[in-house]
């Protein structure tokens, strides 16, 4: 399986596959092939629970092709618990900013034609 396919398979289980640098320990999303901090190539897989808090988001009403039927929906940037990493994804059922204050607890719940799926916890 390619790296992206592995990310997808893990997201379907509610998990986030990450890469920890075996040289300096810096944690990356698993699409990193070289360490951002030290430049080395060795990584070990670390599987994170896909839970965190909403760092920022938007509610989209004018959507790209394929997403019209889901409007309004949120595109969310999630700050993961117990790490500095963030991950983006799709969140349905969000109509107004009152539905999703920044800091809301949320979690990866799957992957489909809408990319990585995130839901409020």
């Amino acid at each position, binding site marked *: 399986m390619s790296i992206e396919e592995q990310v997808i398979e893990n997201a379907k289980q509610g998990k986030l596959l990450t890469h920890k640098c075996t040289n300096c320990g810096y944690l990356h999303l698993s699409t990193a092939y070289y360490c951002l901090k030290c430049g080395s190539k060795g990584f070990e897989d670390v599987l994170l629970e896909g839970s965190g808090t909403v760092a920022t988001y*938007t509610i989209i009403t004018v959507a790209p*092709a394929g997403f019209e039927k889901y409007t309004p929906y949120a*595109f969310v940037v999630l700050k993961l618990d117990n790490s500095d990493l963030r991950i983006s994804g799709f969140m349905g059922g969000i109509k107004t900013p009152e539905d999703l204050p920044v800091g809301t607890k949320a979690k990866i719940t799957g992957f489909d034609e809408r990319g990585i799926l995130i839901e409020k916890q």
Partner: protein
Amino acid sequence: MLSANFVEKVCVLGAGSTKYGKLSESIADITTQASVAAIESAGIEPKEVKASYISNVFGVADKQVHIGPVLMSRLGIPDRPSLTIESACGSGSVSFREAYANIAAGFYDCLIATGVEKVTHTGTEWTTTYFAYCSDFFYEGQAGASFPGLFASMARAYLTEFDATEEDFAKVAVKNHDNGYLNPKAHMQKKISVDDVMKSPVVASPLKLYDCCPFSDGASSVVLCSEKFAKEHGGDYIEVIGSGRGGSPAALQGREHLTTIPSTKIASEQAYKMAGLTPKDIDFAEVHDCFTIAEVVDTEDLGFFEKGQGIQAVREDRTKLNSDISINPSGGLKSKGHPIGATGIGQVVEVYDQLTGKAGERSVKDAKIGLTHNFGATGASCAVHIFQSV
């Protein structure tokens, strides 16, 4: 230092643009019109142009990629080389930089850099879709992020972190429309109010339609040359005194701060250093205001204001035409329009017009130093240039 081994000073000898907006002509037609305008503005013949740099992103949408040879054939110089450059919405400034570097290195004494885009005929849904392909698609576009959506995410972060309101963002749009009203080439040559912005339909919360630049067609072109060439061929010219490029993590999620665009800081620091200037020395700037939030972030990342203070400057009208620093005297992407491959070149056209006294009613008084700032996507790529009058 970048400039150490350069053999030539680089000048902009001529500049021209089509009108920006919904255009009926083909992409090849408007590319040629802008290029001819620039060549005529320079007072030279096409045979003096040794090569061309073309910036374009979605040529495929108008059934014409590989535009360079088509342009050169129409200019009667089909034997001259061309290169098409894609760097999303920052294509124009990146192309300008490549042309600049080739003159500076002494490869050529005269070039044209022409930017073009022709997309409005594809409609809002497909233009939105094509633009989303400029994101880090696996993480962003695939999850339904549009470009307004990505900048709206930055705007939400800014509203959360700093003392700012949606009305403050609206003031950026009002200011740029005031400037664009004075620009006959502008796509949206009309004034708007804060109320108009606040009542316009939400595109991606908190951004509303009038927080967003329009999708535009258009082409812009400039003639670049060595100082020796400029002096020999007479006419008005300006000098390029700073050039910088930078990058940022492709996806917003990977940025250390959600309200800072690292590539802008990197590119501008290089350009200031090369020019031997600081942000205080800049008389006016054409910055990448694809959305109102972007202009606020840009003016901070370029060093005109402290982080979090850009919005205060807008509130106090310090970025209006002929105030503390005139930001986007052309009307910016917001009012002048945003034909994405042309935008970075269009900014240079504005600086040329301003510094050679051709900007009419929107002239920045006594301007000697102008800066252009143009980025691709959410600032994943960026180029900054600094120019001075001669």
